[in-house]
């Protein structure tokens, strides 16, 4: 029985550790005379070889719970050669990522997907409710180009017809960023061109020295700085009386113009903040009441064995929550439903085993033997029965991103929580319950 005891200790340890992970961060500050405690329970930070590994251990909420925008963009690849398509979509993704980051969204995701012949970019912006701005920001293919004044006119009097395209476009612009004048500390807009762009830019600046060079975004003049010097290394700075906000805004718009392919929105989902919060509250209530019913049922039917199964179920919930936090699983509404469903399924192996135990008792076997036989014989059924659920989870989750299957976020959320539920319930239903019974159930 030594093995049982060490397993028992192991189970208690796991319960305590997961409990610690599951608890929300609770700061504790006590100062009474010489005793000063200032710490935070929950969350962790580990130092491994100087590398600090820290996680605040919050459940990560998916877009449908946190609110935000989900947009699927399709790229127009008509004018792009077959071999360049993959690069084009990747750089479009980078541009969008940059725009999104400049916009200041926390934890955005930007992914590319190829379905059949179409190239797509999937953008998720949690916590963004001003959706028009967001869509404009990521979706518009602002065409950026540099134009020079052809007629001898003042910048103020010039109309669209007075500007001529220089051939330098957004595609030649590698990136734009905010920098600061080293002497005055004023914000400036820095431009960095590609190699081809640098050559063009060199010639243009030579031609237009001391003249304005206008930057157009979709036929709107963005800014028209005066060329101060011939620049051949592809690095330019626009200086002026910018505030930091203005400079940032220019940078965003300049970067926006560097989008290499035009994209259009083919799917969009906005989720308001209240809907998600409401759903979370309702789901937690539903889960709690369901859990209570299952516990009452198990204890009603199986008596003391049922109490042990309920303890195992409680440990199951703790471990599952801890794993959600550790992986971390991005929890969506269907994912929550999967978790709640899995609580109901988690007692299945217990029920299979308990029924077997009853049967062995009816056959006249002594209690101890019945317990062990019950566990042994039920295993085949438990394994076979759960494999079909695991197969389904695999297909729903589609881990290899097979393009002939669905790769939908909510569906994946459900598959992942159901999968974790099955695997963890096998552990708690068999190992945990078995050892609880060995320790506490003595006829």
């Amino acid at each position, binding site marked *: 029985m030594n093995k049982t005891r060490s397993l028992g200790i192991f189970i208690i340890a796991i319960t305590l550790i997961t409990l610690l992970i599951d608890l929300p961060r609770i700061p504790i500050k006590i100062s009474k005379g010489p005793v000063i405690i200032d710490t935070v329970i929950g969350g962790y930070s580990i130092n491994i070889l100087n590398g600090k590994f820290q996680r605040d251990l919050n459940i990560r909420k998916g877009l*449908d719970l946190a609110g935000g925008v989900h947009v699927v963009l399709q790229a127009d690849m008509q004018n792009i050669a077959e071999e360049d398509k993959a690069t084009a979509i990747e750089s479009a993704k980078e541009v969008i990522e940059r725009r999104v980051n400049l916009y200041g969204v926390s934890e955005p995701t930007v992914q590319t997907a190829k*379905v059949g012949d179409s190239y797509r970019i999937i953008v998720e912006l949690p916590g963004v409710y001003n*959706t*028009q701005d967001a*869509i404009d920001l990521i979706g518009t293919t602002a065409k950026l180009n540099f134009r020079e004044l052809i007629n001898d006119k003042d910048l103020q009097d010039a109309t669209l017809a007075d500007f001529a395209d220089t051939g330098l476009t957004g595609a030649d612009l590698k990136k734009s960023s905010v920098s600061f004048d080293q002497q005055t500390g004023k914000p400036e807009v820095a431009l960095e061109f590609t190699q081809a762009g640098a050559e063009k830019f060199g010639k243009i600046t030579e031609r237009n020295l001391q003249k304005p060079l206008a930057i157009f975004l979709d036929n709107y003049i963005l800014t028209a700085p005066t060329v101060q010097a011939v620049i051949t290394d592809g690095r330019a700075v626009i200086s002026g009386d910018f505030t930091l906000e203005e400079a940032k805004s220019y940078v965003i718009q300049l970067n926006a113009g560097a989008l290499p392919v035009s994209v259009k*929105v*083919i*799917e*969009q*989902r*906005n*989720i*308001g903040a*209240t*809907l998600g919060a*409401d*759903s979370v509250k*309702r*789901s937690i*209530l*539903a*889960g709690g*009441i*369901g*859990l209570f*019913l299952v516990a009452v*049922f198990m204890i009603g039917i199986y008596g003391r064995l049922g109490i042990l199964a309920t303890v195992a179920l409680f440990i199951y919930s703790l471990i599952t929550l801890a794993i959600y936090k550790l992986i971390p699983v991005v929890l969506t*509404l269907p994912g*929550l*439903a999967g978790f*709640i*469903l899995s*609580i*109901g*399924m988690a007692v*299945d192996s217990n*029920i*299979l085993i308990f*029924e077997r135990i009853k*049967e062995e008792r009816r056959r006249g076997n002594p209690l101890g033997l019945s317990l062990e036989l019950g566990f042994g014989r039920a295993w*085949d*059924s438990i394994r*076979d*029965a*759960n*494999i*079909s*659920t695991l*197969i*389904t989870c695999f*297909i*729903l989750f589609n881990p290899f991103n097979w393009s*002939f*299957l*669905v790769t*939908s976020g*909510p*569906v994946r959320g*459900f598959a992942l929580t*159901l999968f974790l539920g099955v695997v963890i319930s096998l552990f708690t239903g068999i190992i945990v319950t078995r050892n609880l019974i060995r320790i506490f159930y003595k006829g």
Partner: protein
Amino acid sequence: MAAINFMKYKLVYLAISSFVIIPGIISLLLWGLRPSIDFTGGSLWEIKFNEPVKIEDLSTTLQEQNLEYLPIQVSGENQFLARLKPITEKEKNKTEQVLIDKFGNLEELRFETVGPTLGKELLVKTLTGVLFAAIVILSYVGWRFKDKMYGVSAVIAMFHDSLVLLGIFSLLGHFLNVEVDTLFVTAVLTVLSFSVHDTIVVYDRIRESGAQNKGWRGMEDLANKAVTETMTRSLNNSLTIIFMLTALVVLGGTTVRWFSVALLIGTISGTYSSPFVAVPLLVQASKLKNRKRS
């Protein structure tokens, strides 16, 4: 425990299944399913007003904007769900302004737009997924029990459960405007695995008792014994799942309500179909096989 002669009542099971499935099939043929914008493309807009608004007024206003596509639904207090033809964010904002001018301030709960190509693509993908799941599960059951009979009757039971689910959702779609979306397909796939889950447990027993009893005492006896032995477990396990799902249906959020209903129907049907569809089929198949032999 004495085995109850479950197999005697085959005709009763047939009658019960038919009672549920036939109206469903008729509804499927007549009205089909009501696909959501996930499959057809379109826009879905859920909004909440600060002030009470009459649904007819809202409907008229949307029609004036040339927008309404399907009847508007009430989804909460002063809260409405509108299904529209695909509109862009800009068009939506224009309409939002019109509504604010007319009915006072509103809050957008969700807005979803799916392009028509995406919908068609999803349909193909989900069908592939269902087919793929069925084939893999069938192969597993066939391999595990080394007998085609087992695999085929398990899959027919699986088919039975899918028909129950599809039929009921066709009726729900017609009478309550319940739509079939990506999550519904997820529910169908999950139900497939639940259905097989229970069937495997019974089949395991039949195989086991066959080995223990040495010699062929007739499939029917074995089946009765296996069903008797697994009945309590099967009922108890389904009840715990039903508790959880019922709680979700009653208390959970609107977004996953019909998803939970689909899972609930599937669980009940799956529990029923293992002893009363899959096993009688197996018995029937082995009888036919015996007759051929003699």
